[in-house]
Structure formats: structure tokens, C-alpha cells
């Protein structure tokens, strides 16, 4: 296996451990965060603070490392703000609110062997493929796939 493949595998595992430790694989914590009416659950705020705090700090440090100057410009590539961005985010938000699953926790829950997660992930893959087909027709200007 190539070094970058091993790096990606370790990163995926570490990401999964983070999701389990943070409690984000439990849909009730997510729905509780989105429910501003009653007993609001602020845990997702702590998760985002930890994740953004660490990632932003490390990126700032890496930006100074000469060895990594090659990938530095990738950080500055930003996604265009358009209708697809907002419409896509809104559609995702509705699905997120209905299930308490976003893609990461859904995939970890698939590993748990939870029946509901298996159904969700199958449907999610169908949605991803559908979006890909629409984009291929060139009707929707979606742009940057992995570069927000």
C-alpha cells in the first residue's frame, strides 16, 4: 500500500473514533442540538469547537512549514457561492433533521451493524449517484467537489 493510502486509512479510523467519542454517532445528540424549542443539547457546539480549533491551528502551523508549501495553495481554493451551494445545504439540512445522521456518523453506524443505518446509507448512496447524474448533464453548476 502506498503511503498516502495508509495515511487516508488512519485518518478515516481516527475520524471514526472522534465521532464515537464525541457521541455524534448517537442521532439523539444531533436531534437534541437541532431542537431549539425544549431541552437544547449543546454538545455539537463542543464538537465543532474542538474540531475547528485543532484543524485551524494545525493548518496555520503547516502553512509555515516549507516542506508542505506544495499543498499550501490548495487551502486558498474556495468554493463559489451560488444557488446550488445554498439549495444543496438546505436539502441536506432537511434530511439531517429528519434522521439525526450526516454522512460520517451514518457510515460509522453502518459498521455498528445497525439496521436503520444500513437502510440510510443505501439511500444516501442513491442520492449521491443521482446528484452525480444531474451534474453530468451539465445543467447544475455545482463545481468544487471536495474543495469547499
Amino acid at each position, binding site marked *: 500500500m502506498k*503511503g498516502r*493510502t495508509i*495515511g*487516508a*486509512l*488512519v*485518518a*478515516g479510523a*481516527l475520524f*471514526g*473514533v*472522534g465521532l*464515537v*467519542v*464525541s457521541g455524534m*454517532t448517537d*442521532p439523539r445528540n444531533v436531534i437534541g442540538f437541532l*431542537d431549539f*424549542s425544549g431541552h437544547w443539547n449543546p454538545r455539537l457546539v463542543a464538537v465543532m469547537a*474542538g474540531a*475547528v480549533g*485543532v*484543524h485551524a491551528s494545525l*493548518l496555520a502551523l503547516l502553512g509555515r512549514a516549507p516542506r508542505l508549501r506544495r*499543498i499550501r495553495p490548495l487551502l486558498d481554493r*474556495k*468554493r463559489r457561492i451560488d444557488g446550488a451551494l*445554498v*439549495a*444543496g*445545504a*438546505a436539502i*441536506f*439540512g432537511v*434530511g*439531517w*433533521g*429528519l*434522521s*439525526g*445522521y*450526516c454522512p*460520517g456518523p451514518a457510515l*460509522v*453506524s453502518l*459498521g*455498528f*451493524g445497525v*439496521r*436503520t443505518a444500513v*437502510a*440510510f446509507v443505501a*439511500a*444516501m*448512496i442513491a442520492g*449521491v449517484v443521482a*446528484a452525480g447524474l444531474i451534474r453530468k448533464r451539465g445543467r447544475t453548476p455545482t463545481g468544487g467537489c*471536495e*474543495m*469547499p
Partner: protein
Amino acid sequence: MIDKAGMLMGFLGGALIGLAATLYFVATGRTAGVSGILGGALGRDREARGERIAFLAGLVGVGLLTAVVSSPAVANPYPLPLLVVAGVLVGFGTRLGGGCTSGHGVCGISRFSIASLIATATFIAAGAATVAIAHRLLASGVAP
């Protein structure tokens, strides 16, 4: 009453996610957005498919291992047909919008992307509105 232990675990888990996102970026030069990685793994670009599949295998593998050593079996409390609809919306929406909670929420905000900030505010607002409406319907007995 704030659940202090829960908040601490959330912060620690979040820090691990931030570390993982950095490792993925350094190893591959790509953003660690789960929906983008999934879309790329399913797409036609064969060049980077291996490392995307490796990331997804790590994610699912941790779920498998967790289920072996403990019983996390956190079943989703929502009815299956609803979850199928939600799954399609999540898959389609994240690809149309170019990111999910990790891609826009964690990685995008970490690099001060205004687009990601707008996307994150939008999906949180849409999610909150959906939960509020769903609760209203449940209370009035319209939905199951």
C-alpha cells in the same frame, strides 16, 4: 443543567476529528469531507479512488471494532421509511452543496471559507426548522 461530561467528551472527540482531517489533508492534499470522499469513491475519477476508499474503510472499520468491544448499538429511533427519505436528501443535498458537516462545517470553517460558513448556517437552520415542524406534527398526531 448542562451535561459537563458530555461536553468534555464532545470537545475531545472533536479534537480527534480535527487531527484526522489534518492527517488526511497532509497525506492526500484533499479536504476531509465525508460526503465529498464518498462521492469521489463512487465517481469515475480512478486516480484517487484508492485513498478515498481507504478513508471510508477506516470510518466503517472503527464502527465494526466498536461493536465488537462494546455495545454502541445506537439504533436510530426514527421509522425506516423516514430514514430512507432522509438518506436520499442527505446524499443528494451534500453533493449539490459541495459538502456536509465535515467538509463545510469543520474543514471549510477552519480555512475561513465564507461559502462554507453560509452552507453551515443554512443546513443548521434547515435542520432546526425540520425538527421543529416534525415535533409539531408529532404533537398533533398527524405523523406516526
